C-alpha cells in the first residue's frame, strides 16, 4: 500500500495508507487517549475519547484543486469543522493532526466527566484499580470535579456472574464494546452482546453455559475499567502488591508467556506476557485459571516408601538410597535392558534431559518414552523437527499470502491459543482450510472445510498431493534442489486420480483442488496437524510432508509444519531424547515396555511426571507385575499409588527451567516462589538418584546415524532421529542453568539456548513502546525477560535433501459387525491433575460419548441415555451426547479423566458396535 505522510503535533510521519490517526500517532510517539480502541482490536469509534483536531488541505469544490494560500502553502481546514475521532479516521496526505490543543483538552475533559456520571468510583474496592485506564486517563486528562450530582449516579446490583469465571459490574462498564469485539472478532466465540439501551444499556452473555469461551479471561484484561473482573483474582490483592514472575504455560504446545503474580509466596493471579511470536498479548483460560494446582493441599510433600500395602513417608536420603539400591540390583541381576523409563511431556527440558541421561547413560537402558503406551495412543510422528516451521516464523505477522492447512486437529482443544493466531491470519487476508473427520469450531473461520470419512483421512491427504502433481503446482526450484524421488512418487500415484481419491475419502473434489491450489500458490503455507491426523496413521503424515515439499513450503520463515502433540513440552521431550529411537540402540517404547513388564522381561521402571495407570487397568496390572517402580510426581496419582517409592517434586512455580514449544521456541520460566513444601526440582531428583547409584556399565547416547546430512533423509516422516552428542558422564549440577548449559552443548540445535542468552532475547519491532501505557494498561505485561530462541529445524539447513514418501494407503475396510468408528478426542479441560483447586472444575465434563443425530435416532437414544459400546477389546457404558454436525457412523469419546478408553480402544481408531442400555 502506498505510504501517507502527515504531520502530528508538528512531527512529520509516514505511515501506510489506511492507518488510523491513533496508530499513526503511536508511530510518532504521541499518545492519544482511547477507551474503545485497542491496537489489537478492530476500531469502532464508540467512546469519543480519542477526539483530535484534524486539519486537511482545503479543496476548492469547483476546481477540485487544493487551495493555495498567499504564502504558497495549502490553506488548511478543520475536517468537518469539528473534532474527529482518531481511531476511526484514516490518515490522508497533507493532513495535520493536533492532539494537545485547548479544544481537544476541553473535549477530553468533557468526555471523562460524562463517563464518570454513571461510574461508581469504587476504585478502592475495584480489582482493576491500579492498572485501570479509566483511573489513569482521568488523572491525566480528566476534570478534577464534576458538575453532576453525586446522588444521581446510576446504580446496578453489584457484580453479577457472567459465567463462573468472570464477574460483570454493570455500574463500572463504560460500554466500549472491547469485550464484545474481542469475543466476536478475535476469539470467534460471539457469546457476549449488548442488551437494553440508554442508561440501562448493559453487557450480557448470550451463551449457555454463560460466557462459554476458552478465552474469556482476556476480556478482563482488555476491559478498560473494572467492569469485567476475574473470579479467580477477586479481592486477592491489589495489583501493585503482587510480584510478577516470568513463566511459561506448561499446559499445551503453544507455550504462552505468562506472569505468575505472587504475593507472600502465594499465587494471586496469572497474567499474559507479551510475545508476538507465541501468544501476542493473550492467554487461554486453561493457562489463566488452571494454575491453582501448584498450591493444592494434596501436593506430595515427602518421599513415600512402600511398606507392605501402604506408602509411608520417609526421609529423602532413605528413599534415594532405596531407589539406587533397587535399580542397581535389577541392573546386576537382569541387565540394564530390564529397566525402563517414562517421562511426561509436560516436564521441563532440564528434567527430561537428565531423566534421559540417567536412564540411557547412567543406568544403561535404551528403554525410554514420553508416551503412555495406552492402546489408543497414536504413534507420534514428528514432522515438526524435520520440516518444522521455518526459523523466524511469526504467525502474528502472517496474513495475506499465507495459506494454512489444518489436517486432523482441533486447535481449540489441543492448543487453544492457535485459534486466535489462525483467526488473526484469516483476518489479515490469509487462507484457511480445515480437514478433519469431525466438526471443530475453527471450521467457522475457514475458507473451506473438508470432512473426510473417519479412517479415510489418508486418501484426502493424498488427493491434495495428487492435485498438486496434476495441476502442475510444483515448486520446481525447491524440488530440484532439495527433493528426491519425484519420479517415483509420480509413478506410485499414476493409477490414482484426484477424483477417485476424493470419492474414497468422501470429500468434494472441487474443494480439495481449491485447497491444493490455495496451498501451493500462496507465498507462504503452513500445515498444522494434531491428534486426529496421528490417529489416522503415518500415511497421512507422509502425504502432508510431500505436500509441503512439492510446493516448496519448508525451510523458510512463514512456511512449514506445526505438530500439535499431546503435552505442553512434547517437542522438548523428543528433542531431549526421551523416546526409544534416540540412542544408538533402539529401545522399547512405552507399549512394548508394558508388554515386557507383563511377561517379566522388564523388571524395574522409573516414571517421572506421567500417570499412565490412570483409567487404564491393563497398564496398572503391568505396573503391579514389575519388581520395582519409582514414580516422581507432584500428586499421588494412580501410578504413584502403585509405586514402591514416590518422590515429590516442585511445580513450575517452585523452580526454573525451559520449555520448547510447537514452533521450536525454547523459552525460559523463572522461579516464582520458594519450592512448595521444600520439594526439589525434578532434575535435582534425577541427580540425587544418579549420584547414589554405584557405577555400572554405561551406554553412550551418541547417535550412530548422521542426522541432518546431505543425503536424502530417509526418515523425514519417521520419529525424530537422535540429535545428541554424548553428554559428560559427571553429575555435578548446582543450579538449573548448569543443566541448560549442558543441553546447549550436547543437544543438537540447542546451541546457544543458555539462560543468559535466553534472557537477552528482545522483541524486535513489535515490543511495547514506553508511552503505550494508554493502550496496554491492565492488559498483558511487557516482555522484559526474553522472548525465547527458536531453534532450527532440519529443513532450515538449505543443504538437507528430503525424499518424497507418500504412498497409496492400503484399502481401508469397514468392520463386518462393528459399524461405527470410534475416535478419542482431546479436551482442553480434561479433568487432569492440573485442574485441582481451579475455577475451571465446573467446566470439566464427565465421561460421555458423542453420537451423530442419525445414529442416536437409529438406536433411539436421547441425550443422557446410556449406551454400551463394544469393540474387539472390550465394552464400556457411557451417557450419550448428541452432536448435530457430527457425520453418521463416527463416534467420539472425549479423552477426559475417568473415561475407560483403554478398555475399548484397539488402536487410535476403533471399530465399535453400539447398543442401548437405558
Amino acid at each position: 500500500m502506498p505510504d501517507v505522510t502527515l504531520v502530528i503535533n508538528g512531527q512529520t510521519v509516514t505511515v501506510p495508507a489506511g492507518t488510523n490517526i491513533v496508530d499513526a500517532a503511536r508511530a510518532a510517539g504521541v499518545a492519544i487517549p482511547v477507551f474503545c480502541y485497542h491496537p489489537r482490536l478492530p476500531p469502532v469509534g464508540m467512546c469519543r475519547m480519542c477526539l483530535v483536531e484534524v486539519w486537511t488541505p482545503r479543496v476548492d469544490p469547483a476546481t477540485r484543486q487544493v487551495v493555495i494560500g498567499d504564502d504558497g502553502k495549502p490553506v488548511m481546514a478543520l475536517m468537518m469543522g469539528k473534532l474527529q475521532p482518531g481511531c476511526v479516521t484514516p490518515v490522508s496526505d497533507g493532513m495535520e493532526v493536533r492532539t494537545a490543543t485547548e479544544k481537544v483538552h476541553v473535549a477530553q475533559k468533557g468526555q471523562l466527566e460524562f463517563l464518570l456520571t454513571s461510574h461508581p468510583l469504587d476504585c478502592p474496592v475495584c480489582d482493576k484499580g491500579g492498572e485501570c485506564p479509566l483511573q489513569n486517563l482521568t488523572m491525566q486528562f480528566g476534570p478534577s470535579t464534576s458538575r453532576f450530582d453525586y446522588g444521581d449516579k446510576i446504580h446496578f446490583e453489584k457484580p453479577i456472574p457472567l459465567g463462573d469465571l468472570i464477574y460483570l459490574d454493570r455500574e463500572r462498564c463504560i460500554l466500549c464494546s472491547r469485550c464484545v469485539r474481542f469475543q466476536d472478532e478475535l476469539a470467534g466465540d460471539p457469546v457476549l452482546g449488548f442488551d437494553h439501551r440508554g442508561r440501562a444499556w448493559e453487557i450480557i452473555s448470550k451463551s449457555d453455559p454463560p460466557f462459554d469461551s476458552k478465552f474469556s479471561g482476556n476480556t478482563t484484561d482488555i476491559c478498560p475499567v473494572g467492569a469485567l473482573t476475574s473470579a479467580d483474582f477477586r479481592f486477592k490483592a491489589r495489583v501493585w502488591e503482587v510480584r510478577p514472575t516470568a513463566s511459561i504455560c506448561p499446559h499445551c504446545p503453544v507455550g504462552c508467556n505468562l506472569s505468575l503474580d505472587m504475593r507472600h509466596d502465594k499465587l494471586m493471579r496469572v497474567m499474559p506476557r507479551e510475545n508476538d511470536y507465541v501468544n501476542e498479548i493473550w492467554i487461554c483460560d486453561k493457562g489463566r485459571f488452571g494454575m491453582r494446582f501448584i498450591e493444592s493441599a494434596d501436593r506430595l510433600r515427602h518421599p513415600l516408601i512402600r511398606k507392605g500395602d501402604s506408602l509411608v513417608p520417609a526421609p529423602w536420603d532413605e528413599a534415594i538410597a532405596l531407589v539406587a539400591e533397587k535399580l542397581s540390583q535389577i541392573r546386576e541381576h537382569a541387565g540394564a535392558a530390564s529397566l525402563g523409563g517414562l517421562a511426561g511431556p509436560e516436564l521441563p527440558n532440564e528434567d527430561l534431559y537428565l531423566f534421559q541421561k540417567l536412564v540411557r547413560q547412567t543406568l544403561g537402558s535404551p528403554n525410554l518414552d514420553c508416551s503412555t503406551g495406552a492402546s489408543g495412543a497414536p504413534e507420534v510422528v514428528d514432522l515438526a523437527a524435520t520440516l518444522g516451521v521455518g526459523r523466524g516464523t511469526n504467525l502474528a505477522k502472517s496474513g495475506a499470502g499465507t495459506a494454512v492447512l489444518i489436517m486432523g486437529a482441533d486447535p481449540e482443544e489441543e492448543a487453544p491459543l492457535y485459534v486466535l493466531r489462525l483467526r488473526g491470519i484469516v483476518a489479515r487476508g490469509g487462507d484457511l482450510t480445515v480437514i478433519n473427520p469431525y466438526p471443530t469450531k475453527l471450521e467457522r473461520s475457514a475458507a473451506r472445510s473438508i470432512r473426510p470419512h473417519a479412517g479415510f483421512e489418508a486418501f484426502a491427504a493424498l488427493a491434495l498431493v495428487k492435485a498438486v502433481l496434476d495441476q502442475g503446482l510444483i515448486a520446481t526450484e525447491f524440488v530440484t534442489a532439495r527433493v528426491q524421488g519425484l519420479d517415483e512418487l509420480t509413478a506410485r500415484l499414476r493409477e490414482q486420480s484426484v477424483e477417485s481419491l476424493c470419492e474414497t475419502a468422501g470429500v468434494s473434489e472441487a474443494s480439495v483442488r481449491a485447497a491444493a491450489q490455495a496451498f501451493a500458490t500462496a507465498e507462504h503455507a503452513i500445515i498444522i496437524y494434531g491428534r486426529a491426523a496421528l490417529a489416522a496413521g503415518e500415511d497421512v503424515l507422509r502425504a502432508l510432508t510431500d505436500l509441503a515439499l512439492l510446493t516448496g513450503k519448508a525451510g523458510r520463515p512463514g512456511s512449514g509444519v506445526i505438530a500439535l502433540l499431546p503435552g505442553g513440552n512434547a517437542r522438548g521431550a523428543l528433542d531431549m531424547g526421551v523416546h526409544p529411537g534416540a540412542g544408538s540402540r533402539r529401545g522399547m517404547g512405552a507399549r512394548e515396555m508394558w508388554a515386557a513388564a507383563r511377561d517379566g522381561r522388564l523388571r524395574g521402571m522409573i516414571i517421572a511426571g506421567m500417570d499412565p495407570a490412570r483409567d487404564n487397568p491393563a497398564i496398572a496390572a503391568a505396573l503391579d507385575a514389575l519388581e520395582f517402580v519409582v514414580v516422581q510426581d507432584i500428586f499421588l496419582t494412580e501410578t504413584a499409588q502403585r509405586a514402591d517409592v514416590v518422590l515429590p517434586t516442585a511445580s513450575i512455580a517452585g523452580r526454573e527451567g525451559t520449555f520448547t514449544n510447537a514452533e521450536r521456541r525454547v523459552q525460559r520460566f523463572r522461579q516464582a516462589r520458594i519450592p512448595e513444601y521444600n520439594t526439589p526440582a525434578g532434575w535435582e531428583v534425577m541427580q540425587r538418584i544418579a549420584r547414589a547409584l554405584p557405577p555400572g556399565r554405561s551406554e553412550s547416547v551418541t547417535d550412530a546415524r548422521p542426522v541432518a546430512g546431505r543425503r536424502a533423509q530417509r526418515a523425514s516422516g519417521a520419529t525424530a532421529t537422535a540429535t545428541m552428542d554424548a553428554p559428560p558422564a559427571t553429575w555435578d549440577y548446582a543450579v538449573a542453568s548448569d543443566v541448560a548449559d549442558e543441553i546447549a552443548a550436547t543437544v543438537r540445535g540447542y546451541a546457544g539456548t543458555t539462560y543468559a542468552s535466553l534472557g537477552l532475547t528482545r522483541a524486535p519491532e513489535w515490543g511495547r513502546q514506553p508511552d503505550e501505557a494508554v493502550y496496554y494498561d491492565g492488559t498483558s505485561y511487557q516482555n522484559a525477560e526474553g522472548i525465547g530462541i527458536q531453534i532450527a529445524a532440519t529443513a532450515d539447513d538449505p543443504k538437507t535433501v528430503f525424499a518424497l514418501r507418500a504412498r497409496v494407503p492400503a484399502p481401508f475396510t469397514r468392520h463386518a459387525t462393528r459399524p461405527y468408528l470410534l475416535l478419542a478426542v482431546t479436551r482442553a479441560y480434561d479433568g487432569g491433575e492440573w485442574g485441582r483447586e481451579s475455577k475451571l472444575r465446573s467446566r470439566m465434563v464427565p465421561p460421555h460419548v458423542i453420537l451423530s443425530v442419525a445414529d442416536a435416532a437409529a438406536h433411539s437414544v436421547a441425550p443422557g441415555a446410556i449406551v454400551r459400546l463394544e469393540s474387539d477389546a472390550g465394552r464400556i457404558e457411557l451417557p450419550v451426547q448428541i452432536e448435530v454436525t457430527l457425520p453418521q457412523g463416527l463416534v467420539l469419546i472425549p479423552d477426559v479423566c475417568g473415561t475407560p478408553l483403554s478398555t475399548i480402544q484397539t488402536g487410535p481408531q476403533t471399530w465399535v458396535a453400539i447398543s442401548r442400555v437405558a
Partner: protein
Amino acid sequence: MIGAIFKGLGTTLKYLFRKPVTVEYPDVKRPVRERFRGRHQLKRFANGLERCIGCSLCAAACPADAILVVPAENDPAAPHSPGERYAARYEINMLRCIYCGYCEDACPTNAIVLEHQYEISFYDRKSSVLTKTELLVAPDRGHGEIPPILQQLNRRPSPPAQIDL
C-alpha cells in the same frame, strides 16, 4: 569569667524556688495536642460495621511499609463492612511505624485513625505487630460521621459510592 559563673549559678538559684515543671508520669499524664498522632485505631460505622474496606491504600501510602492488608469478599448475609470487600487481615508493625499519619490521609473511609494513645511498648518484637483484633474499636463505638479527631482537620468524608454514611 567569674561573672559568667555567677550568672549561671544565679539561674540555678532562681529555679530552686520556682514550681517544678516535671510531670509525675505515670501518675500524672499530660494531655496531648488535638492533632497528636498516636497509636492507630480501626473505626466502625454507627451500625457496627467496620469502616475498613480492605483497599490497601494505607499500606501503599505508608513510607515505612508497616501495614499489611489481606482483603477478602464479604459474605452478604453477614458482612464485616459495607460493600463487597473487607480486610480479612489488618496488621501494623508499630516498630516500623513512624507516626506520619499518611495512612490516615490515604484511607478513603476514614477507617484508620491515629488516636491519642502514646503508651506503646512491648516485651518482644512479635507483639509490636498489632492485629485487627487489637486495632478495631468495640462494635458499639462506631459513628456515622467522620471520626471526631478528624473533624478538627476539616476532613471531607469521601466514602465509595456504595457506602452510605
